[in-house]
């Protein structure tokens, strides 16, 4: 098992190299550079040239990449051009709200989707099923920002129950902090619940048509025993896949949600860095996000083997 994990980890290295090279090349091919963004147009060109030299921006692109890569291998992701802080500290400060949001959204989605998906499949073509599938369709077609605005309109503007933007750390501020995360977590959680409901329902339907289910029923198990003992576990693989993909996205920052609710998370950091052309920050954050994404998918791959022992890895 240990060797297997190691081998899979090593296999991600070429992909990661392509990721870094791609990000680096694209960002540097952009017209406009960070110095122009940082300084007004009126600033003397020689001052700008000096700053470019200090930041190494006057070097050829492959030299800049080489320098960046060499530092990266020593664990140094560079510093943000805008505030001069190490990239890793920038991310470190932003990861907490994103992780809390991800955890809360994941919890909401599971609470909503698990019963809904199971009931929809078990009572196919009843009103429960119709509710479940309609909910899933709405959730999948509803853009994140629209749902966010709807929630803000209902709970923030009309009912005034919850704060509509800003962030307080629930671990420090307690209930107040939790309240600041409710609307963003609902936005993400409901969208995710829609996907999970749909996936769970269709994989349950697949499992329900298997021979072993008929056998179990013939042996006299009650329907709930059949579902708990035979169907559910076999229906989990696609659900875990979806959750893994979404978890990567959530940790990497729920870009839109963080933007709408002014949450200081990783997603917001990406948006700001992209618009400010803060090269080292964009590279660092995107690289970290990609690593997180790859690792969470890797974890999902290993979960498969645990859920379904028939899946073996070579």
């Amino acid at each position, binding site marked *: 098992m240990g060797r297997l994990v190691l081998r899979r980890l090593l296999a991600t290295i*070429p*992909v*990661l190299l*392509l*990721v870094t090279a*791609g*990000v680096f090349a*694209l*960002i540097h091919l*952009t*017209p406009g550079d960070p110095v122009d963004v940082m300084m007004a147009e009126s600033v003397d060109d020689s001052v700008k040239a000096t700053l470019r030299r200090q930041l190494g921006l006057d070097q050829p692109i492959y030299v800049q990449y080489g320098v960046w890569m060499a530092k990266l291998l020593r664990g140094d992701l560079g510093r943000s051009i805008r505030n001069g802080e190490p990239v890793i500290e920038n991310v470190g400060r932003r990861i907490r709200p994103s992780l809390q949001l991800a955890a809360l*959204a994941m919890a909401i989605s599971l609470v909503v989707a698990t019963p809904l998906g199971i009931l929809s499949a078990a009572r196919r073509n009843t009103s429960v099923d119709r509710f479940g599938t309609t909910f899933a*369709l709405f*959730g*999948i*077609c*509803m*853009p*994140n*920002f*629209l749902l966010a*605005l709807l929630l*803000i*309109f209902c709970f923030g*503007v009309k009912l005034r129950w919850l704060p509509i933007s800003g962030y307080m750390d629930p671990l420090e501020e307690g209930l107040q902090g939790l309240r600041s995360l409710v609307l963003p977590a609902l936005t*993400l959680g409901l*969208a*995710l619940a*829609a*996907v999970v409901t749909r*996936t769970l*329902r*269709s994989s349950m*339907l697949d499992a329900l048509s298997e021979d072993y289910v008929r056998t179990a029923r013939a042996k006299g198990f009650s329907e709930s025993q059949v579902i708990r003992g035979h169907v559910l576990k076999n229906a989990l693989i696609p659900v875990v896949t*979806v959750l893994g*993909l*979404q978890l*990567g*996205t*959530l940790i*990497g*920052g*729920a*870009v*839109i*949600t963080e*933007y*709408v609710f002014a949450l200081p998370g990783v*997603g917001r950091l*990406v*948006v700001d860095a*992209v*618009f400010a*052309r803060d090269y080292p920050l*964009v590279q660092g954050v*995107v690289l970290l*996000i*990609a690593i997180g*994404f*790859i690792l969470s998918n890797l974890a999902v791959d290993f979960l498969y083997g645990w859920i379904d022992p028939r899946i073996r890895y070579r």
Partner: protein
Amino acid sequence: MAGSIRGSGIAEAAAVLPSRALTRGRRWAVLRQAARTRLGPLGAVVTLVAIAVALLAPAISPYDPLKQDLGNTLARPDRAHLMGTDNVGRDVLSRMIWGTRVSLMAGFGSVALAVIAGGMLGLVAGYAGGRTDGFVMRLMDAVLSFPPLVLALALGAVLGAGLGGVVIALGVVYTPTFARLMRGQVLTITAREYVEAARALGAPGWRIAWQHVLPNASAPIVIQASLSVAFAILAEASLSFLGLGVQPPGASWGSMINAGRGYLQQAPWIVFWPGTALFVTVVGLNFVGDAVRDALDPRLRT
């Protein structure tokens, strides 16, 4: 949905499709089949209306979408302005009509781009095998290892604001899905007897690709493409919402919603109408995609 603008679960499902060529006769059969589904026709109507609105925008738009009227800002919907006016007095209905163009161009444009690029890459990878295959597919893995919206955002910023940049950015995001699908199809199809027969008869590689592989691989590609358009429209709206895409004062649904979110209390219609248009269009396209999928492969019906 939470950042998942690829909707790639379908790709894996579609990859196991029995490959049957979409000959002309079968195309009609598929259409008839799709029309018989419950929601397919409804989705088709919505889609056709959206296309008509986009094409006829100059003719049916009651006002100039860019014309400001500072004496009549945030006006409630009435006879003169059926959907009200926005914060600088522009007619919301007219802007919504012009926004339809942007959304559909982005949706269909980026998916077309992805089908062409992904299809070619998949074809090359599947055919060449070996190192080429390995490199192309690792490249696709690299693209896939970004959360889609983060990638589109970074690419969109690099390519510059504007519709073209967004179309290309989304095209890149969707390319791996089609490349994987196509490669899988090529691998299964080239193992079939009729390809072997063609090869035995001395047919050159390009003719086998053109006459045998492409038509037989088209079914899953069509399914994935028809479902991807809806996601691409959502993604374009998200990017416009963040400030990429069509630049102000130009109208797109996403940017209208972003501009209107500061006026939720006084003028909710600024957000409501483009939001509804976006939602209805995406639902309609989803119905069409589902109907096409069900018609092409009844086994995938859920």
